[in-house]
């Protein structure tokens, strides 16, 4: 084992242990927040795979998050699925939509890719509103506590919920870490660094990018489905543009292309908004200021700056 690998395992292991231990000493309010943050950070990790590691900037990830959310929610209300099966349905829906959107949007690049993903997500949001008789539109619907059971465990119970959020975060973290250390992940990074070179090394760049979109969509959908089932609400606002901007914001703030960036960015942003919404209803002002300042002064984000200055080995 190299020294770098030891440091990587040490740091990330420590973070995972802290997340596990936090539930025993956090006050109830922050305990609940952290459960929420871990699910949202899972969403950000899915986004980061595409944006941070493959170099594709999507403005439409809310579509995948909402696909998971509604795949799960409608699976329960319309098809009477249990919570576990409904979450699986959500993930499948998200990955499937990702496969379709990926095949279309990847025919474009750069700014056009951003706009195409934005438009597809907007169409998805409007479709949710249009089928209001099933989705209840803007108002959304509540998942009853009685339905939020997996293997006899009540997901609305704070402790169970924390564990569920933690396991989803762990699972996504380990899977993504494994993917990024695999041959596939190395090719994604190569595409980010120099797409033409990757192609001229004989890699089918389009197929790899498509794979990244599907995986990223799947993880985002998992986060969406988990969010719905853990917090008991499914609504169209989760499909709106704002929820496409959020993961971009979290990842940019935490550091695109770092494993811990999504978590760090989500924690920071969540508490920034949480604190400012106590003062003003215009809490999205913080998001705007942070976005502008990040692009101007710290395009690498918090973990990226750490990597540049101190921890060269950070994955």
């Amino acid at each position, binding site marked *: 084992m190299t020294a770098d690998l030891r440091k990587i395992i040490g740091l990330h292991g420590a973070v995972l242990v802290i997340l596990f231990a936090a539930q025993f000493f956090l006050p109830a309010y922050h305990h609940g927040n952290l459960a929420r943050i871990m699910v949202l950070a899972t969403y950000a990790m899915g986004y980061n795979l595409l944006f941070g590691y493959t170099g594709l900037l999507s403005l439409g990830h809310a579509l995948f998050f909402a696909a998971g959310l509604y795949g799960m929610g409608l699976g329960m209300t319309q098809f009477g699925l249990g919570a576990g099966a409904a979450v699986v349905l959500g993930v499948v829906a998200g990955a499937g939509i990702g496969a379709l959107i990926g095949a279309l949007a990847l025919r474009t690049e750069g700014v*056009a890719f951003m706009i195409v993903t934005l438009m597809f997500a907007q*169409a998805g949001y409007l479709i949710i509103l249009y089928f209001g008789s099933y989705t209840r539109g803007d108002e959304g619907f509540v998942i009853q506590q009685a339905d939020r059971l997996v293997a006899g465990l009540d997901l609305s119970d704070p402790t169970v919920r924390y564990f569920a959020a933690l396991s989803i975060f762990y699972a996504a973290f380990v899977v993504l870490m494994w993917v990024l250390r695999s041959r596939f992940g190395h090719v994604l990074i190569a595409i980010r660094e120099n797409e033409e070179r990757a192609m001229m090394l004989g890699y089918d760049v389009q197929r790899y990018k498509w794979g990244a979109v599907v995986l990223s969509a799947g993880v985002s959908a998992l986060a969406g489905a988990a969010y719905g089932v853990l917090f008991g609400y499914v609504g169209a606002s989760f499909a709106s543009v704002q929820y496409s901007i959020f993961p971009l914001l979290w990842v940019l703030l935490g550091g695109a292309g770092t494993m811990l960036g999504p978590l760090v960015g989500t924690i920071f942003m969540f508490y920034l908004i949480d604190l400012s919404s106590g003062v003003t209803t215009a809490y999205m002002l913080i998001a705007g200021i942070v976005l502008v300042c990040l692009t101007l002064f710290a395009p690498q984000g918090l973990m990226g700056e750490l990597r540049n200055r101190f921890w060269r080995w950070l994955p």
Partner: protein
Amino acid sequence: MDFGPYLMLATLEGAVTAAVLALTASGLALVFGVMRVVNVAHGEFFMLGAVLAWWVTSWFEGAAAFGFAFAILTVPLIVGALAALADVTVLKRLSYDPERTIVATIGILYILQQVTLMTYGPDARPVTPPFNTRLALPWVEMTETGLSLYWPWGLSITSYKLAVIAAATVILLALWIVMTRSKLGLMMRATEQDREMALAFGIPVERVYALVFGLGAGLAALAAVLIVPIQQAHYLMGGDPLLLSFIVVIIGGLGSLPGTVLAALLIGLSDGIISVFFSPTLAKILATLLVALVLVFRPQGLFGARRA
């Protein structure tokens, strides 16, 4: 109402939408064409135009026409200056890198929108139109004595709406003349063609950029001042014009001014007509999907020529 008068009404309403949309979208197209910047905050400059118009006219209680005239002259300038400031302080410092400027304009979007919420508040507020005569419109019908005119109930338009259409047409023509005939337009087109070459010929590219960004936002604000007596000012009103402008600019062939105006007519008119017969949500779904598919399969736009 019968089908015929109904269609005419929808067409007239659509023409008002199209006129305002053409103004807003040509601002977006200008910025994209000359600077290659996708300005996601464009809708917020529109919103700012409407809100400032309410603010300015509210000083002139009792003299609505005078207040409105004052607003139409000053508000686009204020918004344009603000946008030019954003260009110099933010976009220029990003070297106009396409992806980073999009992220930054998303930030600017939230800043403008939320500051408006904090100061102006969450209410929708009306602006009194400077004049507003209701003009009944005739329709033809077949009677035993042949064709004859009649005035169906509800078929009417206001003089103000007609004025909006006329004003938009005049402004667009003026913009076209500036772009094609003036020295300023020449500098813009030179910068658009080749930034480096323009610099080499002594064109102050940085100032042209600030000016273009200001002009683009000013056009959106002007459109908003025109529409606010019909639509009311609200801090969230920027979303729809942004989306529609995107649609128009993309269908019109990214940055081409005549294509943009043509597409605005098409979208504005069909939006008016389609919304009469279908749900507006369905119309929007179809429009957004159309834009995405145009970008995927015909990136030069429906009206644009394929670049060699």
